[in-house]
């Protein structure tokens, strides 16, 4: 009997131990053995921050119909209804060929300019066992303006064209904050003044801060390093993204009316902080057209 007591005590203790484990999760051990690995998505609401390409891509088989408007300067006052009497626009269709490659075509009323681009994702930010700290994308495009020229020597198709390549590197730092840097190289086949250069390097940046699930504050900015006329200014846009299901409304104030890379980099000469601000909006409607 004496011998039995400690044995029983011990086995009871053992049972207790087993029971203690019981109240913990059954999944313990198994759940931890699977390395979590997930892609970080939703750094921006749309494939454009405002003017610039963002870290986002269209999903495979998705068509994004975008209508962009840039109104006149707000500081023109009530006579021009704070700029709303005049507008330039760009219409575009973007399409996701795969989840990592998309193409787009557009046309702006400013200079009657066509543009086309291809954009690809090289790296996608992810966390877990295969952690990638940032996303890296590349966009390349071309523009050609078709407005009638009154120059003595008419520019041909080649003279009217420009090309750009842009790298977009960025990170979604938290649920709310995303930031990207987007250096760009632009080449125009013809320039208007001798002080301009055909090839220019541009630094770009963009950010968004989510204030609620469906509303975010965004900004994008570009600075040409050299080769643009002295009266050129850096395009700066500050806006609000509002997402409602398949639509994204990007409302913003900006000092540029250009809506493609050539236009907003080389055709901006208004000073944001002097009040030369224009109201504008981008409307994006996404359709799933292929499986």
């Amino acid at each position, binding site marked *: 009997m004496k011998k039995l007591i400690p044995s029983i005590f011990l086995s009871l203790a053992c049972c207790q131990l087993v029971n203690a484990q019981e109240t913990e999760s059954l999944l313990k051990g198994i759940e931890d053995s699977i390395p979590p690995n997930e892609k970080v998505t939703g750094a921006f609401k749309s494939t454009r921050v405002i003017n610039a390409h963002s870290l986002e891509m269209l999903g495979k088989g998705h068509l994004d119909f975008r209508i962009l408007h840039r109104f006149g300067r707000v500081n023109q006052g009530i006579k021009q209804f704070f700029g709303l009497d005049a507008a330039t626009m760009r219409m575009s269709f973007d399409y996701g060929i795969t989840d990592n490659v998309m193409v787009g075509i557009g046309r702006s009323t400013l200079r009657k300019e066509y543009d086309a681009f291809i954009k690809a994702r090289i790296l996608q930010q992810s966390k877990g066992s295969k952690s990638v700290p940032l996303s890296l994308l590349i966009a390349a495009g071309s523009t050609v303006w078709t407005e009638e020229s009154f120059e003595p020597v008419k520019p041909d198709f080649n003279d009217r064209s420009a090309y750009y390549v842009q790298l977009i590197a960025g990170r979604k730092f938290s*649920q709310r904050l995303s930031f990207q840097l987007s250096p760009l190289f632009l080449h125009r086949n013809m320039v208007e003044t001798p002080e301009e250069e055909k090839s220019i390097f541009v630094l770009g940046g963009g950010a968004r801060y989510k204030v609620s699930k469906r509303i975010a504050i965004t900004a994008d900015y570009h600075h040409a390093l050299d080769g643009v006329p002295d009266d050129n200014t850096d395009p700066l846009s500050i806006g609000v993204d509002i*997402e*409602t299901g398949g639509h994204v409304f990007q409302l913003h104030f900006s000092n540029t009316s250009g809506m493609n890379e050539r236009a907003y980099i080389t055709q901006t000469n208004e000073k944001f902080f002097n009040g030369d601000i224009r109201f504008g909006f981008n409307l994006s409607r996404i359709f799933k057209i292929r499986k």
Partner: protein
Amino acid sequence: MKRIFFSVAVILAANHCFAQARYFSKDAAVSFYSKALFENIEAHNKTAICVVDMTGGKIEFSVPIKGFQFENSLMQEHFNENYLESDKYPKAAFKGTIPSVGNVNLSKDGVYKVPMSGTLIMHGVSNPVTTEAVFTVKEGVASASAEFIIKPEDYNIKIPALVRDKVAKSVRVVVEIPLLKKI
């Protein structure tokens, strides 16, 4: 010496009593179906983990929210960003009991339907749920399935008025475990 031997024997015996027939699956499939006026939405997730304790009649699931794959990637993004908020609540879980687990014999072919009840934790909200678990043994291979009807509003998932006719009031969730392996 004799005493130690005896103790060890008792411990082993005790442990044996409490040793459990535990089964698990690392690739349980969880699908959901939302049928609404204007849109049918479905998504599939094959990354859920499930453990069933066939002696104690306990069952647990863990479902990574980001594992849900939609045909429409925009929907998938909205599901994660706006509805389930998967950055904040990365997993859904179910902890339940099967009181009549004794009626299920996983070593004998047959179909066993047993009531199951427990707590479903999703989007930071816990709710009691009751359903039926179906264990199927065919040629010695055990599989299991269950179905839940979930109301998004019960889990504090708000559907904006604009898309109210696109998301069902009640969503059908189907869990299928193709192969229950013994631990």
